[in-house]
Structure formats: C-alpha cells, structure tokens
C-alpha cells in the first residue's frame, strides 16, 4: 500500500523515486481527510441527516417509551444501543455511497485517479470521515440519553458501545462503497434511503425486535443491521438473541460480499469514459 512495485523496464523517475515515504503518505492522508471533512460539514443536508435525524428519532421514541422496562434494562438504554447502530450505519452508507456517486459524476474522482495520490488515501480519508461522523452521532445520542432520555450507562459500557459501533460501521462503509460505484448522483440518495430505512426498521433498530410482527422477526437475521444492533445491545446489558460471535461473523460475511461487489462496480465505473 505504501509503495508501488518497480516496473522491470521502467527508467527511474527523476523526482520522488518509485515509492512514497511513510511520512509523505501520512501527510497526504491528513490533508485529504481534512478536505473531505471540510467538504462534508459544509453540506447541511449531509451533516443534519447523519447526526440530527437519529438523535431526533431517539428522543421521540425514547420519550414515549423511555422509562418502561426492556428486560434487564430500561427502554431508553436499550434504544441508545439500537439508535446508535442506526446512526453509524447511516453515516457509513451515506458518506461513502452518496459521496462517491456525486464525486464520480463531477469528475473529481477521475481527477484524483489521474493524480499521483495513492488510491488507498482516497478510501482511508473517506473512512476516517465516516467514522468521525459515526463517533459524533454516538456521542450526541449518549448525551441526549443520559441527560433527558433517562438512560443508564456506565463509562465502561459507553466505551464498549462506541467501540462496537465504530468497528461495526466498517461493513457498512464497504457496502456504501459498492453502491457509490454502482449508482448515479441522483439515484444514490433515493436508493440508499429505500434500503437503509426499511432495513433499520426490520432489524429492530427503531422499535425493539421482540415487539415487531413475527414475519419481520423472521426476516431480521438476514439483514446486516440486525446483527450490528444485537452486538450493540450486548454492550449495554440487554437481552441478546443468539451468539455475539455469530453476529460478528454475519457482519464479516457482509463486508466480504460487499467488498467483492465494490470491486466489480469500481471496474465497471472506471472503464466508462468519453470519446
């Protein structure tokens, strides 16, 4: 990743040599991450929908059911885990999916591909951004939960929840990437919402899974969001369906399948050009 292989017949380039130093790689990555962050925070629709919507939904549902019991913990604490999953999935899917689709259409991605920036920097900068937004949404939810929601969360549980949600965001970043290379700039937000919102509902991220109709509960294990929701619940002491290792394995499979789809979509997209 840090260097490109030397071509056997290539004359050495006069500047820079064949590979980048680690220091230069990190400086480029820092700059690219910063520009990506600046771009995202200046798009109100992105910043608002990724952070404000999950918090708003959490407060509406949390205020309604907040102090009722949900097994060993109250609903406000339970929903902190599920709305946390909802929030990080949104940040991951949209920053990769919509971001890539728009930037491909603009020609910005192609301009970067023609530059000497390593392709991995583009991906890592977007990843850092998705995780930053994910961390912000989780922190905002926790703040709302413990101040007005009535959630009970130890410092250790909060750290475990944040850790699980950020790790669990990765498969959804890969999924977002697959959609970002496959979809156009206008269809991407629509298609992603049509997948994201029903999936979140059917995975028990809005309303606890055991309160959903039976057929929805039967579908849930086939949805990656369900598995992240269950893993998140395990960190706050809620009753969890199935084995945490099984949920982690399901997310790993999601990442692998989405990764293969992303590679195929990227190859197709990068061949499209103009006469």
């Amino acid at each position, binding site marked *: 990743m840090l260097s*490109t*292989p030397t*071509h056997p017949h*290539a*004359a050495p*380039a*006069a*500047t*820079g*040599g*064949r*590979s980048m130093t680690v220091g*230069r790689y990190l*400086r*480029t990555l820092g*700059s*690219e991450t910063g*520009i990506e962050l*600046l*771009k995202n925070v*200046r*798009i109100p629709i992105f910043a608002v929908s990724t952070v404000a919507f999950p918090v708003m939904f959490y407060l509406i549902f949390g205020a309604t059911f907040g102090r009722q019991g949900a097994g060993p913990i109250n609903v406000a604490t339970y929903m902190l885990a599920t709305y946390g999953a909802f929030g990080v999935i949104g940040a991951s899917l949209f920053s990769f999916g919509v971001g890539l689709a728009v*930037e491909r259409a*603009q*020609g*910005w991605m*192609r*301009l*970067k*591909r*023609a*530059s*000497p*920036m*390593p392709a991995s920097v583009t991906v890592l900068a977007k990843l850092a951004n998705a995780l930053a937004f994910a961390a912000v949404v989780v922190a905002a939810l926790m703040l709302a939960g413990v101040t007005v929601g009535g959630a009970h969360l130890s410092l250790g549980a909060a750290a475990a929840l944040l850790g699980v949600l950020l790790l669990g965001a990765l498969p959804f970043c890969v999924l977002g990437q697959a959609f970002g290379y496959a979809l156009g700039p206008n269809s991407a937000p629509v298609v992603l919402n049509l997948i994201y919102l029903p999936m979140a509902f059917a995975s028990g991220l809005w309303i606890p899974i055991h309160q959903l109709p039976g057929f929805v509960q039967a579908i849930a294990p086939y949805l990656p969001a369900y598995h992240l929701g269950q893993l998140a619940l395990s960190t706050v002491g809620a009753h969890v369906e199935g084995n945490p290792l099984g949920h982690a394995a399901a997310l790993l499979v999601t990442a692998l399948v989405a990764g293969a789809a992303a590679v195929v979509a990227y190859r197709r997209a*990068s*061949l499209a*050009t*103009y*006469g």
Partner: protein
Amino acid sequence: MEATLSPTAGATPPATAVAAFRGARYAYGATVALAGFDLTVHPGEVVAVLGPNGAGKTTALHLLMGLLAPQAGSVRLYGADPRERAARERLGVMLQVSGVPETLTVREHVRAYAAYYPAPMAIDEAIATAGLAEVARRPYGKLSGGQRQRLHLALALVGDPDLLVLDEPTTGLDAAARRTLWASIRAMLRRGRSVILTTHDLDEADALADRIVLLHHGRVLAEGTPAEIKATTASRRVRIVTRLDEARVRALPGVHEVRRDGQATEVLCAAAEPLVLELLTADPTAHDLEVSGATLEDAFLALTAARPRTHREVA
C-alpha cells in the same frame, strides 16, 4: 520540434521522451476509439492533438493519465507505465469533464491537490498564474465558467509537473475567456516543461502549439508545425460562380476538394489568393466570389478524400 511531416512510427523512443504512444489501440466494445496511435513528445514541446469530436483525443489522454490501459501497443510516461502512481508525479492534468465539490474554496482545492505531489509550487503562485488571485477565497460553486476552467488549470499546475496534459481546456468558454485562458497556459510554459493539449479548433492549436497532430477516427492523419499543417490542410473555403468544370478547378494550385452547390462551385483550398488569381485568369467572367475559413471537418474531409496517400505512412 518536427521540421517535416515525418512519420514517427517504428523508431525506438529516446530515453528522454516525455510521452510515447506506440501503436496504442483502445476500443469501447465495437467502437474503436484509437486504432494504432503513435506519438512521441519531447521535453519542452507543446503539442496539440487536433481532431473533431469522436476522433479519439480524450481516449489517448486517458491512456497517458493511466485511467485506461491500452488493449494493444504501449503508452509510456517518462519511460514508465502511467498506471504506476510514481510515474504520475511529473504529470499535471486538466480533464474535459471536470468538476470539484462546490462548497470548497479555490484556495482549499489548490492546497488539497498540491498535497498529492512531492514538490509542489507555492499555493499562491499557482493561484496567481492561473489568474485566480481575486477569487481565491470564493467557493467553487460561486465561480463563473471561465474561473472554473482556470481553477482546473491551477490544479494541473500546482504539482509543478514537467508535463501538463490539458483535455479541451477552452471548451464552452466565450472568445474573451478563451484568450485569457490561452494567456494563462502560455504563462505556465517554463524551460523543459511540455504540454499536450487537445482541441477541435485549429486557431487554438495554432495559438498555443509548436506541433500539431491531426487525429481522425483514431489514427494520426498528419503532423507538423502549425504553418505546415495549415499549408497542407484545407484552411479556406472559396465559393464562386464559374464556367469552369470541376476537373478544371481541381487542377488549380492548392485545391483539396471541389463540389457543386447549385449555380456555384465550392472549393476547399490551402490559400485563397493564388487560387482566385488563377481562377479569374482562366475564367474572367467568374463572379459572386466568397472566401471563408474552412471548418475542421472541411479540412479533414479534404485530407482524407483528396489526398489519401500523402500521410498514410504516419498512421
């Protein structure tokens, strides 16, 4: 600089070649964009690849930028495969379809792109050279069309590359904005820096380039200095009502193509004056003379239809 319309194929590219295409071929499915493209660019040269839409210009540049791989033949950038990241450290590009996020300012974009290169120029210098000092803090979304093109030019320049590749840099601009952009491109020429640009405008190629390569249907039809190209391609269209028949007109000096258009005879030629002189000598009754600049399509039509053998060896 090439002194004649010489073939470039076959020769081994010198080690100093900036860019070298050897029989490069690329097809999109059944549509052949480049059918064996040969071109060598030397340090300090400004080369214009001139051709109508669909000639294969953008495909050629995308091969040189490493965005596509040739399906046959080879493409080398400073002796290396352009798909290798390090080879592109000496390359700055301006794409034909280019846009950048609207919420970031001119300065932010230039600074971000500078970070991709090992030894970039000063940010302000790149902005000033592209003529954007006044709007450096303005977001991309609030720039005019000409200012946007100049930002794309600044992004090509800021890495201080030895080769600038500009794909139709002035497309969509009005005459005044085009001239401003030409001035900016000229300001970027420094000792040893090479430029490859595409255009479908002979005037633009003439204004900027040391050497013009005529590309048509994915092949090089001819190459030479702007003066040579203008002399060998039909650059004038002469319309006149004459009693002379087509064969007779075709035999006059510098004529590429003759066609009847109602009462009038239309002639594509290199220069109007010697033709008109001969024509009026042969037919003093000729009248309703009109002279206009030939379009690029006219020039290519003349080159392909009337003189098929002259440049064949180049392709």
